[in-house]
C-alpha cells in the first residue's frame, strides 16, 4: 500500500516458565496509524509491547523500527506503561515525573535544565494538568496519573508511541481528553500502538487493529477486519458487536 513500515516484528516468541505467551508473531505496523491491540486476558498484549521495547527478552524473533534494530532507534519510541505498574506513593511531584521523559535524550549524568523543564510544562499543558504541576503524585486521581504518564511520553517527542491500557480506570472526561490527544498525534504523522480493552470503542477511536491471542489472529484496517468472525476467533466465543458504518 506504499506506506512506510514503522514497526516490523518477525517470528517473535516469548515464554514465561516454558509456557508460550506469544507464539511466532509476525507483524507490520504502517506509519501513521492509530492501532488497537485487542485480545482476552492473558493473550499477551502487554507482553507484545514489552518485548518490542526490550523490557522482556524473547526466546526468538526480531524487531525493527523503520528498518533498523530497536536498540539504534530508541529515541524514536516512547512508552506509556500501565499506571498500576509503579508505586504512586513515591516522593515526587507531577512535574518531576513528566521531566523523566527528557532523561533519555539527556543521557547519562547530564542534569535537566530550563529547556527540559519548559518541554515538561508544555506537555503538562497539553494533557490539561498544568495547574497540578507541583502536586504530589500520591494526591492525584487515577485519571490524572494516566495523564501524567501520557505527558511524560509526549515530552520524548517520539515518532512511535506504545501505550499499555491508557484508558484503564479513568473517567469519561479523561478518556475523551486522552483519545483527542492520540488523534492529534496521528494527525501529526505519529504512529500509535495502544493495548485496548473496550471493544465497543474500537471503531470509534482507532483506524487500525491487531487481534491477538498468543498467536496473531489478524491485523489491518478497522473497517476491513473488525468483524464478528475475527472477534470470535480471538475470544473463542460467539462474539457480536455492532460495527458502526
Amino acid at each position, binding site marked *: 500500500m506504499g506506506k512506510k513500515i514503522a514497526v516490523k516484528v518477525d517470528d517473535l516468541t516469548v515464554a514465561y*516458565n516454558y509456557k508460550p505467551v506469544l507464539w511466532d508473531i509476525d507483524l507490520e505496523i504502517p506509519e501513521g496509524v492509530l492501532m488497537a491491540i485487542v485480545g482476552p486476558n492473558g493473550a499477551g498484549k502487554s507482553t507484545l509491547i*514489552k518485548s518490542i*521495547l*526490550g*523490557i522482556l527478552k524473547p526466546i526468538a524473533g526480531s524487531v525493527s523500527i523503520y528498518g533498523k534494530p530497536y536498540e539504534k532507534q*530508541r*529515541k524514536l*519510541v*516512547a*512508552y506509556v*506503561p500501565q499506571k498500576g*505498574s*509503579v*508505586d504512586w506513593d*513515591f*516522593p*515526587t*511531584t507531577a512535574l518531576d*515525573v513528566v521531566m*523523566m521523559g527528557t*532523561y*533519555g535524550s*539527556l543521557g*547519562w*549524568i*547530564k*542534569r*535537566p535544565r530550563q529547556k527540559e523543564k519548559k518541554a515538561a510544562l508544555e506537555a503538562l499543558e497539553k494533557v490539561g494538568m498544568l495547574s497540578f504541576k507541583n502536586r*504530589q503524585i*500520591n494526591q492525584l486521581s487515577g485519571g490524572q496519573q494516566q495523564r501524567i504518564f501520557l505527558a*511524560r511520553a509526549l515530552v520524548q517527542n517520539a515518532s512511535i508511541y506504545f501505550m499499555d491500557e491508557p484508558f484503564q480506570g479513568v473517567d469519561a472526561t479523561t478518556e475523551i481528553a486522552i483519545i483527542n490527544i492520540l488523534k492529534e498525534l496521528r494527525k501529526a504523522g505519529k504512529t500509535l500502538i495502544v493495548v485496548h480493552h473496550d471493544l465497543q470503542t474500537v471503531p470509534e477511536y482507532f483506524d487500525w487493529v491487531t487481534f491477538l491471542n498468543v498467536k496473531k489472529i489478524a491485523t489491518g484496517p478497522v473497517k476491513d477486519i473488525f468483524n464478528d468472525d475475527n472477534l470470535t476467533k480471538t475470544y473463542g466465543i460467539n462474539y457480536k458487536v455492532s460495527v458502526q458504518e
Partner: protein
Amino acid sequence: MTKQKNICEKGKYSSLRRNDKMDLKEYIELVFSDYTLRTITLGTAILGAVTGMLGSFAVLRKQSLLGDAISHAALPGIAIAFLITGAKDSNTLLLGALISGLIGTFWIRGIISKTHLKSDTALGLILSLFFGFGMLLLTYIQKQPNANQAGLDKYLFGQAATLVESDVWLMAIVTGICLFVLLLFWKEFKLLLFDEDYTKTLGFNTKFIDILITSFIVLAIVLGLQTVGVVLMSAMLLAPAAAARQWTNSLSVMVALAAIFGAFSGVVGTAISASQNNLSTGPVIVLVASVFVIFSFIFSPSRGLLFKQIRFIKNRRDLQLHKTLAFMHQIAENHEDISHPHAIRILNNFHGYTKGTLQKLVDKNYVILQGNMWSLTQEGFKTASNLYNQTDNE
C-alpha cells in the same frame, strides 16, 4: 562474653568513670577533648549518615529486608578471613565480610531471576544459610587452641568501643565516594527507583544502576558491622529512612533527612551508652533511631497517625453539620421565603442533629433559633446549596 565486654568498655571509657553524674555541657566538652569518645562519636555519626542515605533507596525499592540478608551474609566472610590470615586486623576481616556480603547479594538476585521463588523467600534462604554457616565457623574457631581467637563474636552485636581513627577515616572516605556517586547518578537512581521498565526503554542500563546502588548498600553495611553488628545492622538502614519518609514528599529531602536522623542517632546513642557505663553502643543507637521512627509515625503533619486521627474526627464533625444543614436546605427550598421559620421538631425525623450541632450552625451564622423554631439565613442557604457541588471545592 558479657564480662569481657564490660571490662573492655570500662577501660575505654575510663575518663568517664570518675564522675558518674555528668551534665550535657561537660559531656560535649569531653567529646572534643577525649580521643576515644571523639573517635566513636564521629564514627557512629558518619555511619548513621551513610546508612540513612542508602537506606532511603532500599526502602523506596521495597528491598527493606535486603539489608538484613546482606549483614547476615557477611558473617562467614569474617570467619573465613580470620581462618586464612590468623589475624584480627579489622580491615582484613571487613574485606572478607564485603566479599561474602556481595556473594550473598548476587545469589539472592540469581535466585529471584532464575527460579520461581519470590524475593522474600530468596532473602530468607540466603540470610539463614549464610548466618548458619558463619555461626558454625565461629564455634569452630573458638574451639581452636589459638589465643588470638577471642573477640570475633563482637561482630554479632558490634562494639563501638573498638573503633580507632583509621576505621573512622575509612568510613569517611567511603561516605564521600558514596555521596559523590549519588550526586553524579541522581537522575538515573531516581528514575530506576520510580519506574524500572521505563528506565530500560529510555536506553539506560538498569543492571548497572542496580548493581551500583546495591554495591554501596553492601559496603555501608559491612562498614557498620564492627560498630552495630550483624544482627542489628539492617535497622540502621531502615529506621532513619522510614522516619524521613514521614516528613517529606521530595526524594532529595528524604535522603538528606535520613542522613541527618542516622547521624543524630549515632551521636545520641553514643552519648547515652557512654554516660551509662554498661550499655553497649550498637543497640542504643538502634533504639534512638527507633524513637525517631515512632515520633515520626505519630507526629508527622501529613502522614502521622495523630493528625490523621484529628483530621478524621474533624471531617466526621463537619459531615454531621453538613448533613443537618443539607436537610434544612431541603425543607427551606420549598418555601418562597427561605428564612421562613420551621419547628425544630421536624428535624426529629432525621437522626443527624443534636443540640450541639444546632448551636454550631447558629455560631456560624447559618441558622437563627427562636424558641423551638429554626430558620436558615441567606448565608446558610447559600452554603448548603454549594455543599455537594464538587466542581467548586475539591
